[in-house]
């Protein structure tokens, strides 16, 4: 197992470097660099002073160096936690701390809820294959995958927030609140985005869990277990589900990356101050420092979840590491 992990880490390295080159490359394509932005902010300066400032800034941001050196410097800075500056001069890490916290909170809830529901529903659908219950969830997942996320979000806002006035339409709780009341407000603000993201995520995973379970229930060892006279409960939960868990684990972990990357739309619809909506607003404000950092973060999450998926797969299915 240890050897497999090491091997997997080694294959991760080139992928990581390729990723970093792509992201760095994109950052070099962005129109308007830091020097231009800073100069534009100091437009009142005299021409001569502006020239001095330009030279000083070019040196400061290392724009006088050739591109490969800049890449190395950027990589080194990134590893030491220096992700550069935003347009208004704050460190990117500081600007992104709050959105990152919010995104993680939101996605943790979504993952937990959607995992629980999809496992319960998936197993029950597989057991009741072809019955009304199964049909209902088949339709649900079909509708869920066909529905644009923002449509779900807007409908929820329209019905729950605007017409029934049960929950806020979006945004974050007031910073002046403290303690328990802040937490309650946070929950109230989170409910609609969580439902939206969960529906989107459930639509895919329920179907996946169900198919994995159906597959497991068709295996010979299930017939054996049944013929031994084991109760249906033991057969389903102990024999079938354990084996169905393999694909379930992979799909669930694999979907984490997608959740983080895909919540731009949901976060924008609900004005949730997370990474996704921050990305959108940063692009609109041409704040490339933030854009690159968010891209880097989501890419890292992707790589990490891919890696964990593989390891998990190998853990539960020893055949994997042999091939």
């Amino acid at each position, binding site marked *: 197992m240890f050897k497999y992990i090491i091997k997997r880490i080694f*294959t991760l390295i*080139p*992928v990581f470097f*390729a*990723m970093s080159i*792509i992201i760095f490359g*994109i950052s070099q*394509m*962005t*129109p308007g660099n830091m020097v231009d932005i800073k100069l534009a902010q100091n437009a009142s300066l005299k021409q001569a002073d502006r020239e001095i400032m330009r030279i000083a800034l070019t040196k400061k941001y290392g724009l006088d160096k050739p591109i490969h050196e800049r890449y190395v410097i950027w990589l080194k800075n990134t590893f030491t936690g220096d992700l550069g500056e935003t347009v208004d001069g704050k460190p990117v890490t500081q600007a992104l701390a709050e959105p990152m916290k919010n995104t993680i909170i939101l996605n943790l809830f979504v993952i937990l809820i959607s995992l629980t529901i999809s496992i319960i529903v998936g197993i029950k659908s597989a057991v009741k294959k072809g019955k009304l219950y199964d049909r209902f969830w088949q339709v649900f997942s*079909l*509708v869920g*995958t*066909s*529905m*644009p*996320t*923002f*449509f779900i979000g*807007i409908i929820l*806002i*329209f019905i729950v927030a*605007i017409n029934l006035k049960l929950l806020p*339409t*979006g945004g974050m709780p007031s910073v002046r609140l403290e303690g328990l009341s802040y937490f309650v407000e946070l929950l109230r603000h989170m409910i609609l985005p969580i439902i939206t993201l969960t529906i989107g995520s459930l639509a895919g995973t329920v179907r996946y869990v169900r*198919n994995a379970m*159906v*597959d497991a229930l*068709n295996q010979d060892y299930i017939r054996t277990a049944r013929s031994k006279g084991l109760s249906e409960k033991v057969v389903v939960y102990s024999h079938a589900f354990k084996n169905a868990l393999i694909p379930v684990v992979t799909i669930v972990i694999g979907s984490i*990356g*997608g959740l*983080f*990357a*895909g919540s*731009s*739309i949901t976060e*924008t*619809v609900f004005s949730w101050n997370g990474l*996704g909506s921050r*990305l*959108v607003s940063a*692009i*609109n404000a041409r704040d490339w420092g933030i*854009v690159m950092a*968010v*891209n880097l973060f*989501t*890419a890292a*999450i*992707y*790589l990490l979840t*891919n890696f964990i998926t593989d390891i998990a797969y190998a853990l539960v299915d020893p055949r994997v590491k042999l091939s």
Partner: protein
Amino acid sequence: MKKKTIFGKLFSKKEVVIKEVDNSKIITPGQAVFNNFKSNKLAVTGLFMFILVVATVFIGSALLKFDENYVQTTLQNIAPGANYLKAPASLNGNVKKIVSGTSFSYAIDKSNKLHYWGVDVDGALKVPEKLKSKSFSDIAVSDNHVVAVDSNGELHLWGNNSGRQLELDEVTERKVSTGQVKKVIAGRLYSGVVMENKQIHVWGTNSLEQIALKTDWKTRVVDAVALPENIILLLDDGSVKVTGINILSSSLPESLANGEKKVVKIAGAYLNGLALTADNELISWGGSHRGLEITKQYDKKIKDIVGGYAVFHILFEDGTVETLGTTAVYGEQLSVKENVDTIYAGYFQNYAVMKDNTIKPWGLKGFLLGSDEFGRDVFVRLVHGGKTSLLVGIVAVLISTFIGLLIGTIAGFVGGVVDNVLMRFSEIVTSIPFLPLLITLSSIIGTRLTQNQRMYLVMVIIGVLSWVGLARLVRGQILVEREKDFVLAARALGIRQYKIILKHILPSVLSIAIVNMSLSYGGMMLTEAGLSFLGFGVMPPTPTWGNMLNGAQKAEVIQFYWWRWVFPALAVFITVLAVNLAGDGIRDAVDPKANEK
């Protein structure tokens, strides 16, 4: 046939029946797939729905005229309804006056009762309950409010009040209630009355210039025409005055302003004025390039002149009508030509009362699915936007299928180092966070491109980033197929490698590709919609279902203008659902066990 006994069955000679092979019962795999698909009702429904959507979009966009840059803010955010011209039948032969706002009309019949129809804007069509049975002597409407005077000379105002145009101050109120009201007027954000004693009172508005009346005009007014940004006044000496500061007021001919020409009738379009003098001469002024200039005089005696938003109708004594105006796009020019008794026009609606007392309406019928923030017809944009949405999805799917097939096939066949490199490469592509990168790329590259190039860029980016799944499937399939016996047999027969690939392995790979295409098409459409919703996809004014939803990021639009988001989102949803149903059906037809795994 005689029934055989059991002995007969056992001992009689067996009849040898040569069964002919029934050719019709042997089916090719293609037919089997087709039959499977046909027996799946849901899938057939999905396919049918999809074909219906495609047909509606393509045939509809060929039939419906569409100018993507058209803007008419006067008509913005009007709720669905196509009944603007549906005047009640009880008005036939009974009309005293018809006035029209943008999407609604009011009429007073000969017994002074009120009639109204159309689609409400800001409550302009919500007649207060106590007024419904009252009799009225005059009524005027702006684009969003109503001024009416009842038979007792009492004023009633309702509708939009954002310019405080519904609120009379006490002085004006007293003046109005003590005098005799001759005519009421209503323009954008202002209301007014012309009194029998030639006084005029105007109130409301956010821009004072719009209704600024000189003191010596105020007591000599015999007629007034309320326009969105001006008031045209006819004074008792036959001179014409115009309020406001714009082309309409600045271009007023001197001969009209100083009373040299004796004017008897005035009419106004949005930024144009028209005056009829006592000697049957027409004089026009105001905004150019609208085809509203008088280029020739008429010999026939003119009975009346009326103005809509972008048209003038000239009604002659003999019942014929001449219509001016080239920028009218809602069919206002399509006028009735003869036997007209009276003609009414307001904004984009026109009503002619014929000599036989019937009412002939023409002009803007309404917006089936409402209008958006620029006054564009949501239905027309939906039909034309569908073309772009469907196209973006198809091109993206083709691109991703091509790359996926190519890379998957190469990796599967060549194997070794090439396979390893390609798989690592595909891993890199999957690790690229799809949406963030898509957003970033399209915003960076997109700024340097034209409208159309940008649309293609979106297709290419979506396609280029989403081939990995297919490539892996294809590679896996090839690895399995290539070990099968028939390939070994083909190889043993000495068939060349490329022929084995083309003839024996690719067909099975192709079926995977087709299934994958149909299943991913919906996803691509959703991606485009999401991207355009955020404002990073296809840019307006080119409509797509996604960017039509861009406005729905505002709570105000979600709450008040539901038709602007419900219809485009439903269009996306229904189309993607249809595609997914059909795609599921194709998958099940190709591989009936797929859904069981």
